[in-house]
């Protein structure tokens, strides 16, 4: 339990501080950190408790992040990108990409290519998660606009 809380705290801290590095407005730091922490927590819990591969867990993590940041963008009336950019950072497959680079330096090309394709797939999974959240919110917005039009005329 303590590890889970600590993982949440540190991923929250990372996103919170990244919001500062990218010059976000000061009142939105907490929200950005919260989104990043939740996204990473989903990824971490699924990775630890189930048998799923890192590719699928990062897909679900970034889906969570996207949903949370779209909700916050609607409620706080700010661009969604402010919550997404710091939040995505803890999910980035830095460790795997680094491992691939190290294998390249050690001239083990076969395992380097293997690991690199893994990193690429994880990055793609994060992108697809964000896309799904985007589309879900676009569909919701679209129906809202249509309803307004119907009642307006």
């Amino acid at each position, binding site marked *: 339990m303590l590890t889970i809380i600590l993982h949440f705290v540190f991923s929250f801290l990372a996103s919170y501080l990244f919001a*500062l*590095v*990218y010059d976000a407005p000061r009142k939105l730091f907490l929200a950005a950190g919260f989104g990043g922490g939740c996204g990473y927590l989903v990824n971490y819990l699924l990775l630890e408790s189930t048998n799923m591969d890192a590719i699928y867990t990062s897909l679900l993590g970034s889906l969570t992040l996207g949903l949370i940041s779209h909700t916050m963008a609607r409620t706080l009336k700010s*661009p969604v990108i402010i919550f997404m*950019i710091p939040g*995505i950072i803890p999910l*980035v497959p830095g460790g795997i990409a680094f491992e691939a680079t190290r294998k390249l330096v050690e001239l083990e090309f076969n395992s380097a290519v293997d690991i690199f394709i893994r990193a690429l797939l994880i990055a793609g999974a994060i*992108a697809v998660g964000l*896309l799904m959240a985007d589309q879900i919110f676009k569909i919701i917005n679209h129906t809202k606009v249509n309803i307004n039009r119907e009642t307006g005329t």
Partner: protein
Amino acid sequence: MIRDTSNNHIDEKLLTKVILLAGRILLECSAETIRIEDTMNRIARSLGYQHSNGYVVNIFITFSLSQNSEVQIIRIHKNNTNLIKIANVNTISRKLVNKEITLEEAYKKLKDIDLNTKNYPLLLKTLVSGLISLSFLYLFGGEFGDIIPAFIAGSIGFSIVEIIKMRIPTLFIPELIGSFVIGLIAIWGHHLMATGDISPIIISCVMPIVPGVLITTAVQDLFDRHMVMFTTKMLEAIVTSFGIGSGVATSFLIL
């Protein structure tokens, strides 16, 4: 010929200026393309110009208010990420569309945003990037002995990259030098103070200079069918991360 007859009282030149200024600020702060085009068209539409056209590529904006007015082009020279400016421009365009402020006030406020928005000081950012390295050190499972070298390497590497970026606008060099220094400090400090695996400390120190904004906005551009913007941004991100990787690899080869 289509004419916007209902808007004779609106100063077209000022309106074009406001729209282009908003677009330029957003593009310079590397917002997503759909947000830039949407903002420009929405301001024009709210003031009665239904046939405005805008096109945004990574270095310039073309915009024409209606079919009778001139086409304006603005070229962008720098690319700084600054999320405050994006949020503030968003607020002002929202107010302008809702008719809460006039065109003149909006122009004044946008000028103010463009010239007077301060970044957070570099020293604060340096300390913060050290703290970022520490929190990633926990997430990647580092050791207690790694804490001090991770803090030093993370903050020094970030400040080196920022300082070089201010001096020369080259793409590849700042990350190469910064990550090379990070590699030197991290490997040396790790050998001095800790035992065990070296990869957690290096990954966590490199984290503050990872091109997160570029990757996120590039993906959003891809799914909004802005292929040119996606290609340029993704290429920039790939070149940057290749710089980081080769810097670390060089320090590995030397030590």
